[in-house]
């Protein structure tokens, strides 16, 4: 039953991910990316991590991608830009090398995951992945990384503002 849901979602997410790379128009890529993120959210739901799944939709698919689209539309109103694609052809070697690198990293992750017997995890508790549980973990055991991450985001925001402002003035 679980596989019956997992395989379609996984298939669609891989197809969407490929479409992100091979799509000619940037907006098409962005739409495919949204589709892939929704599929990922589906996979999170299957792992009983409802809260993470909702955040995936809310933050990545809902907020960040809207900004992406906004930027793409503002910069590239005429559809596909041939000059940018010519530059991409020159970088073919770099692209292939990056691809090989990513495959290598993925292979290593799978290798480690299978070696440490993660195949038989402990049974989940009933309230695993609920908002209350995640909140409790964030504000007790992981409060320092949590706050550090929020400061990091603040710094990034202020930095972006400063960079943009000096250009405007």
């Amino acid at each position, binding site marked *: 039953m679980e596989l019956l849901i997992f395989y379609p979602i996984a298939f669609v997410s891989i197809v969407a991910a490929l479409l992100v790379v091979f799509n000619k128009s940037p907006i*098409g890529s962005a*739409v495919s990316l949204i589709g892939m993120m929704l599929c990922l959210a589906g996979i999170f739901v299957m792992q009983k991590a*409802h809260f993470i799944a909702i955040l995936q939709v*809310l933050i990545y698919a809902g907020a960040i991608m809207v*900004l992406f689209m*906004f930027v793409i*539309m503002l910069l590239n109103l005429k*559809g596909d830009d041939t000059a940018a694609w010519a530059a991409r052809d020159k970088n073919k070697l770099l692209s292939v090398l990056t691809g090989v690198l990513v495959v290598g990293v993925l292979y290593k992750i799978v290798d480690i995951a299978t070696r440490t017997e993660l195949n038989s995890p402990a049974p989940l508790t009933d309230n695993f992945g609920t908002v209350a549980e995640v909140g409790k973990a964030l504000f007790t055991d992981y409060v320092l990384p949590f706050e550090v991450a929020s400061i990091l985001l603040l710094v990034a925001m202020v930095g972006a503002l400063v960079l943009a402002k000096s250009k405007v003035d």
Partner: protein
Amino acid sequence: MIVDLLITLVKILFILAITVGFFAPVLTWVERKQSAVMQDRIGANRADILGFTALGLFHAVADALKMFTKEDFIPQGANKVLHTLSPILALIPAIVTFSVVPFGGEYTLFGKKVNLVISDLNVGLLFVFAIASLSTYGYVIAGWSSNNNWSLLGSMRTSSQMISYEVTMGLTIIGVLMVYGTLKLTEIGAAQENFFHWGIFLQPLGFFMFLAASIAENKRIPFDNPEAESELVAGYFTEYSGLKFGMFFMAEFIEMVTIAALVTILFFGGWHFPFVSTAALLSVFEFLGATGANLVAMLFHVGVFFAKVAFFIWFQMTVRWTLPRFRYDQIMKLGWKILLPLSLANVVVTGLVLLAVS
């Protein structure tokens, strides 16, 4: 298993029937009549079947026929796939939100517990919010794929407006969940059985900000800058005709129902009638037997819920025909400089009061 599946199916069909089948067509008529009442006109009364007009109700049928038979036009240079996809992307989130909105409590029918909500997620409130943020795409892509500058401007305004007001909406929702201590919409509804525990009394400021933000999210007057007829022809749906235009139209009306339902469940006691508790209802109708009493209570609660929903739909219509359109900078100022600080203050004050009470 099979029975549970059937019950869920019935609930889904009920929601689809009441939103797409009942509210969407009837609201076009209500909007016409309401505007007519407010402007001292008679309103739609010409569409008739054999001379029988039913107060203009047949205009909804005429609208549907017109949209089905009109040419589906795709402008030159438009992206065909995305142009077709975007009305669907606009309509689906409006309907999907209803899957977590309870329209009644929990009843025992024939020894089986029936919960009047399609899916009782423990992240229900966040789900509503996530789906609302996804609905932006339909409008943004519509404007971009039309290859028309008016449309593009409309969708730019849409995305900036929806992003701005989503922040306020999220922060007012935080106030609600602090008060009730849960994200489950069924539990929030159940917690409001006592009249004085209604959201409007516990979160008065939150109620007004939520209503304003959600009307802005739905892009209706006074927040209808994305489609401002006097500036942008028709905004993001300028290049849409036939049923695709109809889907945008329907999305707006269904979203109105969704907003009304959310306001009802979060701030106006959900399915509860003031001072009538479920236990009292069950004891009054005890002579009908357990299932009979539960059935009566269920019908009563569903009726109360949709009566409240109807009231808030009427309220949104009245607002639409009362206020003029805001200017774009006024909308941004209201969102970022007034509503956002107020909603932050609301969260802080709610937290302090909760601390003081506990």
